[in-house]
């Protein structure tokens, strides 16, 4: 039974989607921050422009009011003497009556700070207000007088709103009547302007946050798409791997069955028949001896012995084909030596085997794998390469062990033409990779072309030095 691989171990596809999503997340975050910053800056500029525009409009309005008022009493002021109390009273009366809107009114202070006109807050009248400051400590009346002495000007301060009774930001325009030493002015509350600006700012903030949400949603969607495609790829890959494994398992089974069939046939057709023959000859000899015919018993006995010899030889051959005992008893070196000698004898291809003198230093799996690789490589050389010379080299070194099979043949066919031998090469590859080794198939560096097959195994497959009892 095959165990399912754990799901959390990231495979290639998962790593890939992770790699794809990480820059995506970073990019989206950077875009979001930039967008927020830019739209905030833009909105702030617009709001400031709006605020300025609104305030300018208010100021212009104020100046118009004051000019109007002044026109309203200029026929009195223009002709009056600076000490003309009657004219002054007349003017204060006119100004007191000029109230407008919900909070609009005119005020008059003389340059000493005494209030002369305050129609909405009559408790101010005839009291001296020099030194008055608003809730933020900004001088109010003194500033009016300073502006009036200078001609005219605007002043901004906190003032109690008559309609609500709460302090609010006010802008006032003051002109000076220098003959009378009066500061005449009017003011409007600009809290509505400030409020609309604040609303605009709040709206911008809401919009920025909404943009954040949109970007986040888009990014999330993209991430889900990437992950989903990663998962789909992953599942597909696993399915492919499963299919490949199934095919591989089937191949192993097929090979095994084929091999069993072959051995069974050889045992039955070869050994069994031989042994049956021996049994007949022995039986024959026994019956002759029972009759006292000793002389004629010898011939069948000899024949039986001869047949037994053949049977033993056959068993030995079958056993060696299955798995050379030399490999187990003497090690890979001698086994490869025997293999190359057999190969040279069978094919007539000039074959050299070189190695260092150590034997039996590889573990069992490695010995078998390298032996089978050499076997497969030599089979390929015989079938496909047309080589006249092969070198098999095996040696241990400080990094492990290397088996190298070099031929001077026609080289490997192009990848697409490797239909037949492909399975053999793949088998070699799988065998060696199972042992954490590597298999390289390279064109030979020799002038006449050819192929080098090189199998490397790591040091972990070299056995510790044996004591004499193994």
């Amino acid at each position, binding site marked *: 039974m095959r165990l399912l691989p754990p799901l959390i171990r990231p495979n290639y596809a998962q790593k890939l989607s992770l790699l794809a999503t990480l820059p995506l997340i970073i990019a989206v975050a950077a875009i979001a921050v930039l967008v927020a910053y830019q739209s905030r800056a833009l909105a702030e500029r617009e709001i400031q422009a709006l605020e300025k525009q609104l305030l300018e409009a208010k100021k212009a309005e104020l100046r118009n009011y004051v000019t109007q008022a002044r026109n309203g009493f200029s026929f009195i002021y223009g002709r009056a003497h600076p000490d003309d109390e009657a004219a002054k009273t007349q003017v204060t009366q006119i100004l007191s009556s000029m109230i407008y809107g919900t909070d609009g009114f005119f005020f008059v202070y003389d340059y000493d700070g005494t209030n002369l006109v305050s129609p909405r807050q009559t408790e101010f009248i005839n009291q001296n207000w020099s030194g008055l400051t608003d809730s933020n400590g900004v001088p109010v009346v003194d500033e009016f007088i300073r502006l009036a002495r200078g001609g005219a000007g605007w002043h901004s301060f906190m003032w109690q709103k008559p309609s609500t009774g709460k302090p609010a930001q006010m802008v006032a325009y003051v002109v000076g009547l220098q003959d009378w030493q009066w500061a005449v002015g009017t003011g409007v509350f600009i809290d509505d302007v400030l409020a609309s600006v604040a609303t605009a700012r709040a709206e911008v903030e809401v919009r920025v946050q909404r943009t954040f949400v949109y970007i986040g949603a888009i990014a999330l969607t993209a991430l889900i798409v990437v992950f989903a495609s990663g998962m789909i790829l992953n599942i597909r890959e696993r399915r492919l791997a499963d299919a490949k494994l199934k095919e591989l398992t089937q191949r192993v089974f097929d090979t095994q069955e084929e091999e069993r069939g072959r051995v069974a046939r050889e045992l039955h057709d070869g050994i069994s028949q031989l042994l049956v023959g021996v049994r007949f000859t022995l039986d024959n000899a026994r019956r002759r001896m029972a009759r006292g015919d000793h002389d004629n018993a010898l011939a069948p006995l000899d024949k039986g012995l001869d047949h037994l010899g053949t049977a033993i030889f056959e068993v030995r051959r079958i056993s060696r084909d299955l798995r050379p005992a030399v490999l187990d008893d003497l090690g890979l070196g001698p086994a490869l030596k025997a293999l190359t000698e057999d190969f040279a004898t069978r094919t007539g291809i000039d074959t050299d085997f070189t190695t260092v003198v150590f034997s039996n230093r590889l573990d069992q799996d490695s010995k078998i794998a390298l032996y089978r690789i050499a076997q497969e490589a030599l089979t390929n050389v015989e079938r496909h390469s047309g080589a006249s010379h092969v070198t098999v080299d095996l040696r241990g070194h400080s990094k492990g062990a290397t088996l190298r099979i070099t031929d001077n043949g026609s080289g490997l066919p192009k990848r697409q033409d490797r239909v037949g031998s492909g399975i053999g090469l793949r088998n070699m590859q799988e065998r060696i990779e199972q042992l954490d080794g590597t298999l390289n198939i390279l064109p030979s560096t020799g002038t006449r072309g050819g192929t080098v097959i090189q199998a490397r195994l790591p*040091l972990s497959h070299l056995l510790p030095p044996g004591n*004499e009892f193994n």
Partner: protein
Amino acid sequence: MTKTIRVLIVDDHPMVAEGLQSILESYDDIEVVGSLSNGREAVERAADLAPDVILMDLNMPDLGGLSATEILLERAPATRIIILTMHDSPEYISSALNHGAMGYILKDVPTDEIKQAIDAVIQGNKYLCTGAKGSLKPKDGNAREALTNREQTILLELAQGKSNKEVAQRLDISVRTVETHRKNIKRKLDISSTAGLTRYALEYGMLQGTGAGL
């Protein structure tokens, strides 16, 4: 009649050992002094049994025939050892001779040939059987003679800087034997100095495989 030849059979297949014993006992000048089932028993009991000739199987549990041969010969160099086996590969023959065996015969040869082999080694000659199908020839080969198991062990000890005496103590053999092995190793590897041996063992990954390091 000359003096009887004391023969020891070492084989883990009871049927083979039995058959061999009954055949050998049919010769007047052969006395089978024992039949043991593995190399370790042979190493332990050889001194008591004092055989002239040992018929040794190759594949045995515990201690195989080649290693046993080498160790037996370290202790009693005069013993003649004949490898008796089913294996007909030339590699085995070279290896057997390399480990000090005097003879090599297949189990399925005619019994007369076993007797011939015993007679030959007693006279100090090597005996290699012709093989049932004639395929059995010792190949000298172009490759250098391989190190035996014992020599490999000793090379490792020497490469790690141990003296002859230390190696002798560790392996429970005489200093002279270590020296002989050392000489053989140097001859086989064509190396003249101990430093050269260390370098060789390092270069071919022999020491690295120990896991113990130097």
